[in-house]
């Protein structure tokens, strides 16, 4: 395993009118790591995600993907470069089946370019069959294969989170940003999601950056952990180190973080 940095965020600034959501955010995601991003509500974690992934235009600062400056790149360009993201509240394509949701997650297909759908139907059909097989293999890994042809809206909240993860996997991404993979998920499925993330990290070498409020899960999975508050990173290190940091406790409204 290399010990370079998959993602470097340096002095990232994002303002919405008079509100400064990101006030010079800096942190790094080591290659091959599962890095955690924690912090109280409104700390700017999701804004940081959206800005890194190209959904918001940064007002300052730099983002590098494996040393390459990607600041201001469009989401689709970053997706092609191997950076995928999920959403805090799952955003699936409601009128598509679960398998179709994953198939859209693959890199742009030749059959998506006109006029191939009209004049090269045989070739497009073969590519589609291969793509569907790939989607089924991913669903198999996520234990969702039996829902392949169900509408995406029929799934539970936790399953939708898994489908979003599957969609990100289809892109062949090597860095995946997960926004609260455990929020609103029942205990059983939570264990399954945690195990899946760990397995994808260990077996496929995918680097993860995840936002999470379930600090036990962060302690279990993530190293390093960065804590944000009021648009800045206020502490970094192992979960134990971050936990011990007095500024972190203060940031969580002065309340001590529950001990595990």
């Amino acid at each position, binding site marked *: 395993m290399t010990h370079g940095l998959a993602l470097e965020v340096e002095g990232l600034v994002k303002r919405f009118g008079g509100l400064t959501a990101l006030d010079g955010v800096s942190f790094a995601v080591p290659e091959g790591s599962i890095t955690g991003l924690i912090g109280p509500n409104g700390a700017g974690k999701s804004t940081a995600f959206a800005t890194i992934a190209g959904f918001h235009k940064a007002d300052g600062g730099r983002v590098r993907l494996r040393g390459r400056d990607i600041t201001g790149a469009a989401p*689709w360009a970053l*997706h092609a470069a191997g950076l*995928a993201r999920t959403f805090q509240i799952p955003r699936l394509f409601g009128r598509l089946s679960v398998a179709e949701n994953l198939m859209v997650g693959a890199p*742009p297909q030749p059959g*998506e370019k006109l006029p191939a*759908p009209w004049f090269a139907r045989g070739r497009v059909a073969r590519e589609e069959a291969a793509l569907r097989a790939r989607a089924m293999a991913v669903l198999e890994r996520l234990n969702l294969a039996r829902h392949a042809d*169900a509408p995406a809206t029929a799934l539970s909240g936790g399953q939708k989170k898994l489908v979003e993860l599957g969609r990100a996997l289809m*892109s062949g991404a090597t860095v995946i940003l997960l926004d609260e993979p455990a929020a609103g998920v029942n205990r059983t499925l939570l264990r399954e999601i945690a195990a899946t993330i760990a397995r994808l990290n260990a077996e496929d070498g995918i680097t993860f950056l995840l936002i999470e409020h379930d600090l036990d899960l962060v302690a279990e999975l993530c190293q390093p952990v960065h804590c944000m508050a009021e648009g800045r990173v206020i502490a970094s290190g192992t979960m134990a180190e971050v936990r011990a940091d007095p500024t972190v406790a203060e940031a969580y409204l002065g309340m001590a973080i529950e001990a595990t």
Partner: protein
Amino acid sequence: MENALLYAVTLLTLAGIYAALTLGLNLQWGLTGLMNFGALGFVAVGAYTSALLTATPAPGAAHLVGPGWPWWAAWPLAAVAGALLALPIGAISLRLRADYLAIATIGIAEIVRLFVRNEDWLTGGPLGVSGIPRPFEGLGQPWGPVAYLLLVAAVVALLYAMAEATAKSPFGRTLRAIRDDEEAAKAVGRNPASFRLQAFVLGAACMGLAGAMLAHFFKFMGPDALDPITATFLVWVMLIAGGSGNNRGAILGAVAIWAIWAATDWIAGQLPGELATRAAYLRLFLIGLALNLILLYRPQGLIGERLPGAR
């Protein structure tokens, strides 16, 4: 007997032309979620393009005298004209929020309407363009109109095949994904503006072609031959009634609503003078009422989009 046949042929020909229009709107709204409230503009551009390229003008006609091409050379260019009008509108407004396209298309349709009414040198102004040849006219009655109906049906079949191939392809899947959730589509690496533009232009090309078929059926095109009620509003009713997102629904809706529209026109015509005028407005009211009832009780239309799990 022959009158009844001619009436049926006329009805079906117009229904077929509307089916081409509705298929175009289905590509835009049903598949991609684009609100085009200016179908009239694209129909008009296609109609005038084909009219000016083919018409043998009456002596003293004000409009630009064209090359007098045969219909089959002009129709593809009518589709291209519809597409060319859509290109700049789409390129500007499809980057913005969805409702901006609706506003932009209403505006463009009005601009096109005023343009054809006022630019006499090109369009003949209020006098319009006459002498547009109708294909197969030489076959006489009733075979000429029947042959034209078959031509319209063939064009609709071709557009249907194209629309189906589009909808079922990976391209169509991406359009549906963008329609369902734009942010998620960006997250999976698609540029929504680029896909939307393609769908918008493709739909506009269908509308331009429908305009050409309309002009050659009327053998005349003028500013009063098109009005937003039939060229825009009725097409939306057809698509929603038939089932947006379903190409067969689009065709069925076009035929069913056009049959109702034509039947009520006939009924209104049987009424005495004063009542007949009022009936014209009542007809519009009834179509509006029908639209509301459909949206309330059967929002998916007669045959709605095929959704997963409903096999």
